[in-house]
């Protein structure tokens, strides 16, 4: 039996078209895959959007999902990765009561140990920021909880870049540009 529980990161490069988010998410939901995190942003390529999605599933299912994603007309390319294939991060923000932080005297240690930053501090509350992997951001949350209530804790979706030495989307788009010129010429 294959492990149902591998965490995959799916990246989807798309044209800027309305409705793609709905198209993409329905491909996951239809196969009962929970989306754990989703980030949509511009990519390094002009006019190309990038979706970064994480989900737990099997290699077979994720391969099928990626093919379904690529089948959408406005999806340029889609890929899936395990954690080993990528460099990835998320951002977490924590809002805690300032008095608890100061009382405990642990603030400095925490900042150092977790490589966290203070974004805002006033008499009432303090906002900390940490970037890292999910385990790290959660670990800081647990540590903060020990000092007192964490008023708000929020994590962004994952962002990721690949470790490979080919930029596959650029290569694909370059091929397509040649194809477009060919069609243009044949007219």
């Amino acid at each position, binding site marked *: 039996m294959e492990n149902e529980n591998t965490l995959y990161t799916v990246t989807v490069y798309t*044209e800027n078209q309305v409705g793609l988010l709905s198209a993409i998410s329905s491909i996951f939901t239809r196969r009962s895959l929970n989306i754990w995190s989703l980030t949509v942003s511009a990519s390094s390529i002009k006019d190309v959007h990038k979706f970064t999605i994480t989900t737990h599933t099997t290699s077979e299912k994720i391969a099928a999902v990626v093919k379904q994603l690529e089948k959408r*007309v406005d999806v340029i390319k889609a890929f899936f990765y395990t954690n080993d294939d990528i460099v990835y991060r998320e951002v977490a923000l924590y809002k805690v009561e300032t008095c608890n932080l100061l009382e405990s005297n642990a603030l400095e240690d925490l900042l150092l140990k977790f490589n966290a930053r203070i974004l805002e501090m006033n008499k009432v509350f303090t906002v900390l920021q940490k970037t890292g992997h999910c385990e790290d951001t959660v670990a800081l949350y647990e540590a903060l909880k020990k000092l007192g209530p964490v008023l708000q804790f929020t994590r962004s979706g994952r962002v990721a870049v690949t470790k490979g030495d080919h930029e596959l989307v650029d290569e694909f788009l370059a091929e397509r540009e040649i194809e477009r010129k060919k069609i243009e010429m044949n007219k």
Partner: protein
Amino acid sequence: MEAEKFRGSEIFLKSLLAEGVDTLFGYPGGQNVAIYDKIYDYKDRIRHILVRHEQGAVHAAQGYARVKGKAGVVLVTSGPGATNVITGIADAMIDSTPLVVIAGQVGTALLGTDAFQETDVLGMTIPITKWSYQIRRPEDVAWAVARAFYIAQSGRPGPVVLDFTRDAQVGEAEFEFKKCDFIRSYVPVPEPSKDAIAEAAKMIDAAKKPFVVFGQGIVQSGAEKALADFIGKAGIPAASTLLGLSALRSDNPHYKGMVGMHGNIAANIMTQECDLLIAVGMRFDDRVTGTTSTYAKQAKKIHIDIDASEIGKNIPVDLGILGDARTVLEKLTSLVKASDHSEWEKTADKCYEVENSKVINPEIHPGKGYINMGEVVDTVATVSKGDVVVITDVGQNQMHAARYSKFVKTRSMVTSGGLGTMGFGLPAAIGAKIADPSRQVVLFLGDGGLQMTIEELGTIMQEGTGVKIVLLNNNWLGNVRMWQQLFWDERYSYTRMTNPDYGKISSAYGIKNRLVEKREDLEDAVREMLSDDAPFLLEVRVVEEGMVFPMVPPGKSVNEIMLTEKEWYK
């Protein structure tokens, strides 16, 4: 001088003309009345078929598309007009039928306000279309239409929806039409790998018991001849899926019938005995494979398909070839050795003998008792010599039509395969006849299916569409009744139907009709029906508790075949 400007509605019609559209299936309403107003001026160039229900429009467009080989076009209003076409869009998606569906939409200022007859058309149709797009400006109309037709008709075809807001219909813009032939994110026809084709040729040459299963991809890529040439040269027996029917002539010596739940024994047994399965333009639907865990386990498998997501989706394969069926088959034919597998092909003879004596003969030549559905289909096939377009509805009528029709021309079978939509038949037949008036179009349907879209008799009346309707009346929702008999302890829960007088209904619509209750009258009635080009309803009272055999029951392997309620194929 300033360039001439047109309303979006007119740009829309000009764009349809530029795409070569000659027919629209539609229904007017508040949010497309501006388009209808322009259609009034284009009457001489575009034929508009006024259906009686939007579901009829979309199924008619499907029938049209499948016979014509180009997109069927549907025009409906917003809200209920749009929701009424959802079933047909889903049907077209799963059966890869090219459609362009245009739905009126409220003005952009009203979007999202729950305005009268506003509904989220994009939200509803994105999962069941190849592409859905909302046109918000008249400047975008020509572009959107061109893109819609390109997407619907290229690669693996499918339905496209244009949600056409009122502002875009009534606002003005210049008209410039550029046909769409390239979308950078979309590769409709992948170039097949030379290595993969070479590898396939090797596998085919090495195989002792090769077997081809083909689907609708053959028809859609125009690979009918390429397929016949390929199996002819390599000497390979071949079977069709439900949607592949008519891609190969039924009398081709290598043709072994239809695969799947109610397929021919030979086709299913050979699937389980071949050493190489070559699947072309088909998608291993569960009605084809039975339980996948045992499906053709003994065989190496090659899957040729234009859609990358189909390869390995349901059945793992040894070799996938991504590309157009015709291109791939032509290359394969040039590479493979001429070969003969007549010993292996004889496997089919024994299967056929059993099927003929246990199933076919009793079905089409019962001699006495009530008329069987298969008998009616066989009579039509015999009288017409197979030269008709067969349309079916869904249920027992469909399976018998598929099993007992004979095909001599391609694009002669239109049926709702993937979705199994009751009510598909009557409007699809209208569309098919409009697509090719030179051919006889014969529709087989049940008393359940007819009543799902019976309102389209009005369309037939108004348009004089010469559809030949063969109503196989068993007073039951036959297919479900059959399942209740076989698998649910004969508990016939709500499958019995009290039927109206179909002769009277038909007469009320001015459609000629005839009722056949006795075997002696059947052939004569079929001849009468086929003697001219006028609409006709032939009602045949068939055996009430008829069955469709052979049958691979759900969850079984395709070589576990029921011949009757009690007997299994051995």
